[in-house]
Structure formats: structure tokens, C-alpha cells
């Protein structure tokens, strides 16, 4: 714990900004019911109100408070992206490490399967599966987790293959340690740095992917507040933006606010990932 704090203190400014932003998003997501002035899906005023003291960011096409929906959106969008990334990681890193350690037919079959899945852009595959399974949150999470686990599989297999040639693995094998022990106690600790950095990158990708699907109307379904769907719902407003008064100009910002919230979080995660990558490459020297 102390060592972790010491490392955090050496973080450059960019990584600190990234971590502060991620912490802010986490607080908003966790405390959403306390922070939001109105409930998630309640109609609280007239349609399309401009920004005012009562509704800081105005209201949407049904008269729901935009600020409240932004705050609940943090919880829904980020929460589901995090869940999907965790699932993709469990699946991809699990099979990847197993494939590298076991070798043989398991490695051949799983690698060929991953090759096929990666030969087609994930968006195309996701759209195909969502047509068949219908648009539900469970289908969305499962589809994206499976598609995204292919990249984790490739990385963890490559990293594990490098580690498995080490002498200490051979010693452990000769000692008669089981498969589970070798993966858990020898391979995993040594593979953690690149895997942590990859987790950040995968999270960004999954988060953008879910937002894109929601934006297309195929991700999270209303009335759940979610940034991707909010961009879609308010997109028409941009045509009515004029710059005669600042209140009229806010209509132009309507789709940019949720889209900007998405962009800011991915930038923040990338800033931290850059630092972690730098750190892990520096420690190897």
C-alpha cells in the first residue's frame, strides 16, 4: 500500500489530471441519487427549456431535467461499460493464459476462432448479433464482452508465452506444481503491468462502442438515461442553434454535452494508461 502511494506521488501532471477526472466521474456515478436535483426519468417541466437557475442544463424533448439525466447517465453508461470490460477480461485473459500454458489443440482451436472473429470489424458483428438477439442490456453486454475478449486473448497469450520460457516456470513445473498454481502464482503477477494498461485501453474501447450503439438506437433503451442515447435524442436541436443570445446558443450544445462527457472520460483514462505503460516499460530496464 505504501509502495503504491509512493508510485502515485511520482505521477506526472497529465496522469494526475487523468486520475482526478476519473475520481470525479466515479463520485458522480456512485452518488447519483444524492447529486441529481430531479429523478432519472421524471417529467419535471415544459419541453425544451433553455438553461436556467431551475434547470441548469434545461430540459429535453419530454421535459426531463438534462442535468439529472447527465448525472444518472454517468452511472448507467460507465457502469455497464465497466461490467462489460470486466467480463471481456475474465474471458479473454482466462482463455489466453490457459491457451499459452496448455498449448496443443486448445491453443490451436481458440487462436483460429479469435482469428475469424477479428477478421471482421466488431461493429458489423455486433449489429448482426443484435438483429438476431434483439436489443437488450444482457445481449449488449455479452456480445461486446465476447467480441472484445479477442484482443485481450491475443495480448495475454503473447505475454504469457514470453513468461513461460523463463527458468522459474520450469522450476515450478519440475517441482510438480499444478496448472492453476502456475498460472495464478507465476504467470499472472508477471503479466499484471501490461494487462492493467490493456484494461484501461479496453475500457475506453468498450465505452465508446456502447455509446456508439446507444447513439444508433441499438444500445441501452429508454427511459434509461445514457449519454449515447442522449446525443441521439438531442441531435436535431443542433439545427436550431443560433448565436443571437447565449440561451439560444445552448441548443447547439445539447448533443455536445453528453458527447463531451464521453470524450473527456476516455481522454482521462488514456492519460493514466500512458503513464502506466511508461512505468511498466521503465521498470523492465
Amino acid at each position, binding site marked *: 500500500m505504501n509502495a503504491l502511494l509512493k508510485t502515485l506521488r511520482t505521477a506526472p501532471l497529465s496522469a494526475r489530471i487523468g486520475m482526478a477526472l476519473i475520481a470525479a466521474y466515479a463520485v458522480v456515478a456512485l452518488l447519483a441519487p444524492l447529486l441529481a436535483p430531479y429523478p432519472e426519468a421524471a417529467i419535471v417541466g415544459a419541453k425544451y427549456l433553455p438553461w436556467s437557475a431551475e434547470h441548469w442544463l434545461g430540459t429535453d424533448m419530454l421535459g426531463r431535467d438534462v442535468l439529472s439525466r447527465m448525472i444518472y447517465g454517468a452511472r448507467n453508461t460507465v457502469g455497464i461499460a465497466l461490467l462489460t470490460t470486466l467480463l471481456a477480461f475474465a474471458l479473454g485473459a482466462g482463455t489466453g493464459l490457459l491457451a499459452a500454458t496448455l498449448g496443443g489443440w486448445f491453443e490451436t482451436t481458440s487462436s483460429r476462432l479469435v*482469428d*475469424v472473429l477479428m*477478421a*471482421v*470489424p466488431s*461493429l*458489423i*458483428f455486433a*449489429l*448482426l*448479433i*443484435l*438483429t*438476431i438477439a*434483439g436489443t437488450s442490456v444482457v445481449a449488449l453486454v455479452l456480445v461486446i464482452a465476447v467480441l472484445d475478449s479477442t484482443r485481450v486473448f491475443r495480448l495475454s497469450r503473447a505475454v504469457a508465452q514470453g513468461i513461460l520460457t523463463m527458468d522459474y516456470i520450469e522450476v515450478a513445473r519440475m517441482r510438480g506444481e499444478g496448472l492453476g498454481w502456475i498460472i495464478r502464482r507465476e504467470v499472472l503477477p508477471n503479466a499484471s503491468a501490461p494487462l492493467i494498461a490493456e484494461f484501461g485501453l479496453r475500457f*475506453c474501447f468498450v465505452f*465508446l462502442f456502447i*455509446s*456508439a450503439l446507444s*447513439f*444508433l*438506437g*441499438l444500445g441501452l433503451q429508454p427511459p434509461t438515461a445514457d449519454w449515447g442515447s442522449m*446525443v441521439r435524442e438531442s*441531435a436535431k436541436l*443542433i*439545427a436550431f*442553434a*443560433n*448565436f443571437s443570445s447565449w440561451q439560444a446558443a445552448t441548443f*447547439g*450544445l445539447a*448533443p*455536445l454535452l453528453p*458527447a*463531451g462527457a*464521453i*470524450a473527456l472520460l*476516455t*481522454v482521462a483514462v*488514456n*492519460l493514466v494508461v*500512458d503513464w502506466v505503460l511508461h512505468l511498466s516499460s521503465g521498470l523492465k530496464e
Partner: protein
Amino acid sequence: MILKLVLRRFAIGALTLLVVSALIFWAVELLPGDIASEVLGQSATPETLAAFRERNGLTDPAMLRYLHWLGGALTGDFGLSLANQRPIAELIGQRVANTFFLAGYAAVIAVPLAIGLGLLAALYRGSALDRFISTSTLAVISFPEFFVAYILILLFSAWLGWFPSLATVSPGMGLGARLYATFLPALTMVLIVMAHMMRMTRAAIVNLLALPYIEMAQLKGLRRWRVIAVHALPNAVAPIFTVVALNLAYLIVGVVLVEVVFVYPGLGQLLVDSVAKRDMTVVQAACLIFAATYIVLNLLADVLGIVSNPRLLHPR
């Protein structure tokens, strides 16, 4: 040697395409129940179900239908749309052309610009331009496509009023009007793919600059641009070609979101609409076209990488 490598890569590409087409076809077979009852709903009588199956050729065994579908797809005949019973070829014909037009438009701007700026960045390493390029790469990989698109709309359409925010095109439109109407979607895609290409061009050149023969050229007193353009660039062509082809492949996918933002009548828009309507056959056709383009461009990237590698031309 080089021919063998290229042929081998072609064979792998063809095999991948076959497997992916099978996957696209068989995925629909996983559907609980069958397509007929899915489309016609719970209230359909057995007679209407039978008639629907007959008309759409659903009575044959699945393997036969797959071969029939694949054969049709190769000749441009994708069967009937489930939603409105019109031939799919008729629905997608103009849209495929529109999509490739937009992607091509973006590529024609993005590729020379990215390579040129990448060269400049390599030439003036550590300069303001160089720093700008590495920052913009971070921004672009972090921003969702629709964020870039809406910023451009707000700036160039709502505020300045220079370009239309909706890319409406009709078949009879002249080239100039068409280029004007699709400028904002094309610009969005240029911004999305350019950063990566610039960065890779710069990296390819910078990698070479550390080599002894470049040092030799510098010691001879050659000008800096000559060292880069004549000595370094020919050896960097292979990785640059590869990254260009990979980004064009990405362009084909990114076009789906951009088309939706700008309400552009392309294949991506049709795909998204058909997913929402659960029009299976149209989704299959569109997915196959997107997947095939993607696979072919990846194939092209690899083949160009092999062909432009000078070491493979003179086997020892």
C-alpha cells in the same frame, strides 16, 4: 518466393471470407423458432407461414440455402428483403455506390495530407507541429465519431453557415454539388483516420533515421529533405502502405456512424435501420459487403507489405 508468399496470403484471405460468410449466414439459424414466424408474428396462420417459407425459399435444407445465398451474393443477387419483399439488390445498389463515394472522398483528402504532415513531423522532430500531431492523436482516439461530427456541424453549419448539416444527395446531382453536400461527413472521417496515419508515417521514417546509411548520407552533407525523401522514404514505403490500407479498412466501418449523423443515404444507414427493424436478410447482405471490403483491404495491406519489401525481391 515473393509469388508464393502473395499466393499464400490470397488463399488465407479467400478462406477467411468463406468462413465469415458462413458465420453471417448461420448466425441467423441460431434464432429460436424460424424467420417466418419471427416476421409474421404470433397470429400468422399455418397457411400464411407455409406460403412465406415457399416464397423465400425457406423449405430447403440450410446447407443448400447457404450455397444458394453465397452463389447469389457473388453475382449481386441477395434475395428479398423480409420487411417489404423488395429485391435487396435494388435497395442497396445506389447506397453501396454512395458509401464508397464518401469513403473514397475522405481517403483522397486524408492519405496525401497525412503522409505529407507525417514527413514534415519527422523532418522537424520536437517542433510545435510534431507536438501538435502527437497530442491530436490522443484526442482523436479518445473522441467518439459523433462528437467530432457534431463539433463540425456546430462550427461550420450552425455558426458559420458554410456547409449543410444534412448530407442530402440525389442520383441526378452533379459532382461539384455532391462534393459540397458531403464535405462535412468527409471532413469528419478525414479527421478520424488522419491522426493514426500521420503518426505511423512519422514513426516509420524516424525508425530509419537511426540507421548507419542515413548517417552516412548526412555526413556527405546532403540537405535534410533530400535525406528523408530520397534515402529514407523508399525504405519506409512498406509500413506506410500497410497503415494506409488498414486505415481505409477502418474508414469503411467508421462510415456507419458518420452516415447516421449526417443522414446520408448510404449502406451504413440502411444497415442500422434494418437492425432496428430486424430485417434479417438485408442485415446479412450489408454485413457481408462491409466484412468483404474490410477483409479485402486488410489483404491488400499485407500484399503491399510483401511486394514493397525490397529484401524479398532478391532471395539469397
